[in-house]
């Protein structure tokens, strides 16, 4: 993404500017959770929604590859990959979905298939013990530190995007 003040280019996952006058600057980042309406109404019945009034064929068109994200195989048109400036890390299928976790300069990708529903996984990450589980309602994984109530920066993502932002990331292999 780019800002309209300096036209610097920013990695929208890591929050780091990598080209332009602000190259090297980093935004504060924090997790954004994905969920289903059904799960949100159960957990946060008073949740309020920012809605868009924009209506256009462009919106309809862009929705087509994203009709379903959570637990989906996914699809991106071939021309999308031509816009990427480096080859996709071949260690996993490019559209593999999983939970990416980040702490400092360390990152790890937990493929969805390694996180079975109803099971709690413990792992070592960034020198600490991390606990991962998937929500019963929406199947979305989340991670917390075993000691404490919070967790590392995390996002539900696909391999091509996460490995692009964190090329040296580890992969959790069950």
């Amino acid at each position: 993404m780019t800002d309209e003040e300096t036209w610097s280019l920013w990695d929208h996952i890591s929050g780091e500017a990598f080209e332009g006058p602000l190259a090297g600057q980093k935004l504060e980042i924090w997790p954004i959770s994905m969920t289903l309406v059904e799960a949100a109404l159960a957990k946060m019945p008073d949740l309020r929604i920012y809605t868009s009034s924009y209506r256009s064929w462009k919106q309809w068109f862009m929705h087509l590859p994203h009709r379903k994200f959570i637990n989906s195989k996914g699809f991106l048109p071939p021309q999308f990959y031509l816009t990427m400036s480096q080859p996709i890390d071949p260690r996993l299928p490019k559209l593999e979905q999983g939970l990416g976790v980040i702490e400092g300069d360390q990152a790890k990708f937990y493929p969805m298939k390694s996180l079975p529903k109803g099971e709690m996984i413990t792992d070592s990450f960034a020198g600490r013990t991390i606990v991962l589980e998937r929500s019963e309602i929406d199947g979305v994984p989340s991670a917390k530190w075993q000691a404490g109530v919070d967790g590392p920066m995390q996002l539900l993502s696909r391999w091509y995007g996460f490995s692009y932002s964190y090329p040296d990331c580890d992969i959790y292999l069950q």
Partner: protein
Amino acid sequence: MKAIDRAKAKVTTGKFQFLPLRPKHDQPLASLHLPGDAELLVLERGGEHRGLIAREMAYHHICQGELEGQPFLVSF
């Protein structure tokens, strides 16, 4: 540091520009009558939560605003 072709990056600043969502107001989720399997993004600032409809963000890609006096930018 990534090497990037700025000419390619400029694609989205031309005719087919994605307009960021700049929310002016919000509505209760329950009042929107969305299907139970519709996907949401949920952000939190200063203890307050707000949702975004994923199918709308698939176009906008970015939502930029302020919540509880704190600026935020959500990308999707």
